[in-house]
């Protein structure tokens, strides 16, 4: 027996590798003209892992106080070898991560993959998006630069709209009535302890559901198969699908490294609590569509609108009876397309509109 075999046996006797390999060898993924969208979820998972690794690396030098945060990030970027790379990767990957979660969500929505029996996968998925936005919001403040400071001021201010507990929520988020060093320390806690804990648990559930139920095949493809117009095709997960995943991840790494090296994420100016906020402060891009909406509708109505809209969005699988029966539902497709157009349009207006 050579070493490889002995190692395998040692592990096999303890964790039943035979069973695992058999499972992996039999795992397949549906193969059809829309199956490219299946890779987006895997890409998100990969980016999350990139965030965990680079995040841990940043933790080695970062100091979460108003006095030292900016200087410590500056130190990481200028004195620590490859610190600029680690920090830039963390920033770029974070934004791509959130962007791809949106893409993942809308592809799932438009293919009606949320329909019975995958309602729970959908719900956990939307929760993961909200948590990822929480990561983005809390992480943005950590370098303690002026832009982030002002954006956080504006962002946390919306908490006050919450009925009954608004004031309390504001103080909870800010660690006081104003955005100060206390807010920074608090956001740091959210960003590296609270959110990762919750995110990992929900992610575990999400992946468990995906695994238990397999990938959803779009209704149109199912119909073609049942009509005999197409054959049912499955791709082995190992190695065909996995190789494609890895190819995607490798290219993604290349893209992020390219961006990080050519355009290192900027540090900006250190936050100065005493500077009054300029009028054109913008939150991070993934909040802009909401922020922009609130310029056109009364704040209270807008905030409640988004709260109710978000709740309905999460519970959509329970309303879409037609898709649950396996019938095409044009109305929901229209709703999905409308939401995408609305978000893209308002984001663009937010960035391009003159005088904004």
């Amino acid at each position: 027996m050579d070493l490889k075999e002995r190692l395998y046996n040692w592990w096999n006797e303890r964790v039943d590798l035979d069973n695992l390999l058999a499972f992996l060898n039999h795992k397949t993924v549906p193969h059809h003209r829309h199956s490219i969208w299946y890779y987006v979820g895997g890409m998100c998972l990969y980016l999350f892992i990139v965030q965990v690794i680079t995040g841990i690396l940043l933790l080695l030098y970062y100091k979460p106080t108003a006095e030292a945060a900016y200087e410590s990030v500056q130190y990481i970027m200028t004195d620590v070898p490859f610190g600029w790379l680690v920090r830039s990767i963390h920033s770029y990957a974070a934004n791509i991560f959130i962007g791809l979660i949106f893409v993942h969500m809308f592809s799932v929505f438009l293919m009606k993959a949320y329909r019975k029996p995958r309602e729970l996968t959908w719900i956990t998925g939307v929760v993961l998006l909200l948590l990822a936005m929480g990561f983005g919001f809390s992480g943005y403040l950590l370098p303690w630069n002026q832009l982030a400071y002002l954006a956080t001021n504006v962002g946390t201010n919306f908490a006050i709209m919450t009925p009954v507990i608004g004031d309390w929520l504001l103080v909870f988020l800010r660690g006081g009535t104003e955005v100060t060093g206390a807010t920074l320390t608090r956001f740091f806690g959210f960003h590296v302890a609270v959110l990762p804990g919750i995110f990992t648990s929900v992610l575990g559930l999400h992946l468990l559901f995906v695994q238990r139920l397999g990938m959803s095949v779009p209704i149109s493809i199912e119909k073609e198969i049942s009509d005999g117009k197409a054959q049912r095709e499955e791709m082995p997960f190992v190695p065909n699908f996995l190789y494609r995943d890895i190819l995607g991840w490798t290219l993604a790494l290349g893209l992020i490294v390219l961006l990080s090296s050519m355009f290192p994420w900027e540090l900006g100016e250190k936050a100065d609590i005493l500077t009054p906020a300029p009028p054109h402060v913008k939150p991070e891009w993934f909040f802009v569509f909401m922020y922009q909406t609130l310029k056109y509708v009364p704040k209270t109505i807008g905030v409640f609108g988004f709260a109710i809209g978000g709740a309905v969005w999460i519970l959509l699988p329970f309303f879409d009876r037609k898709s649950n029966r396996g019938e095409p539902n044009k109305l929901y497709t229209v709703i999905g397309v409308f939401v995408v157009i609305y978000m893209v349009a308002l984001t663009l207006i937010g960035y391009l509109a003159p005088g904004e």
Partner: protein
Amino acid sequence: MRMKLILLIFVVAGFTTARAKSSSCVDCHLSSDWVSDTTIVSDYMSGDIHFKMGLSCDDCHGGDPKRGFEEGDPDLAMDPLKGYKAPPSRTATPDFCDRCHSDIEYMKRYNPRLPTDQLKLYKTSVHGKQLYRTRDTKVAVCTDCHGVHNILPSSDSRSMIYHNNVPETCRKCHGSPQYMRGYKYNGRQIPTDQYEEYSKSVHGIMVLEEGDNSAPSCNNCHGNHGATPPNLISVSAACGECHAYNRDFFNASVHKEVWEDLGYPECEQCHGNHLIQPATEGLLGVDEGALCIQCHDEGDDGYAAASIMKAQIDSLKHALESAEKVAKEAEEKGVEGGQARFDLGAAKDNLTRVRSVIHTFDPEQVSEITSSGIKVAHEVEEIAELALGDIKIRQIGLAISLLVILYVALILWRKIKQVDSKTDFVVRDK
């Protein structure tokens, strides 16, 4: 009001037990049965420095208040034979105060650091000369600036002679055209707009608006007891009290002698007096608004020197601005950790220094400072540029890693083709 009264009674009670013989003045002068004005006592006891030092009425006014009180006869208390001195006339006031204030031994007991030559100085001042020579009682005597029975030390911010209150005190007379009518200096009517001008000057704004007592008040240039305007060749001495380097440079410069010959009042010739404004580089050079061209014409040495020095300072400022900009950009881009801007501090020092050295009016000395500042600024800019250019070194690393990544991707692609070619995707019915 009642509180004050109780306090007063309390103070008076303490006072009477401590110095029994003095109590008698107070007893009558506090009572409207005896005197019409009872405020002298309360004024005096509410904080006059002499009261705080334990001096009482008879220490200045003499007399025998104890006997006068016991026998109920004010004339006994205020008996000139017993040394009683009535409130002095204006002309007698300086000598009245001088009885104690020139007595070194006596003053040592109360305030060892206080000078004792005030009267001597006063007699040299314009005020003193007027008073003693022409018996002009309109000029300032001790009490006009110090008060009478409410004299506060100059360190007390309520005092008329507290640094920041001096301009207001002088203004009482010097700001009034009626009062000053007829008073001449060097044959010309003394103006009355000094306060107005001073209040708009760099010094006046600091003292009057910002309450900064490090800037000069009237007496810092004109003296106080020996108040007299600085003459033509002592202006730089007055200004040099604070602007020491500027004084030294000026006195060693070519202008010193020329100024004397021309009868120019030194610093004042360029900077003005009461309305003095913050000096800028605009005063230098040969452009419009520059002062040098008031005397120097194109073609003379001074004209050339002025334009050279202006150019040198301008290029230092320009180098500083440019370096600052690049350093800031490098810092905000996160490629440079603030060392560049820190190093720039040395060049900024040179700009501050040259603004003083300019009073040598010597292009060589000026250029020594500016060129070393420009050198530092250029070095800093270079370092910052290099840091910004560091991205190029990163790009080499990037190129290598991208090659590896693309290579792996290519092989993976081949691998996918390979495994796909051996896979049948179609699901056959079982």
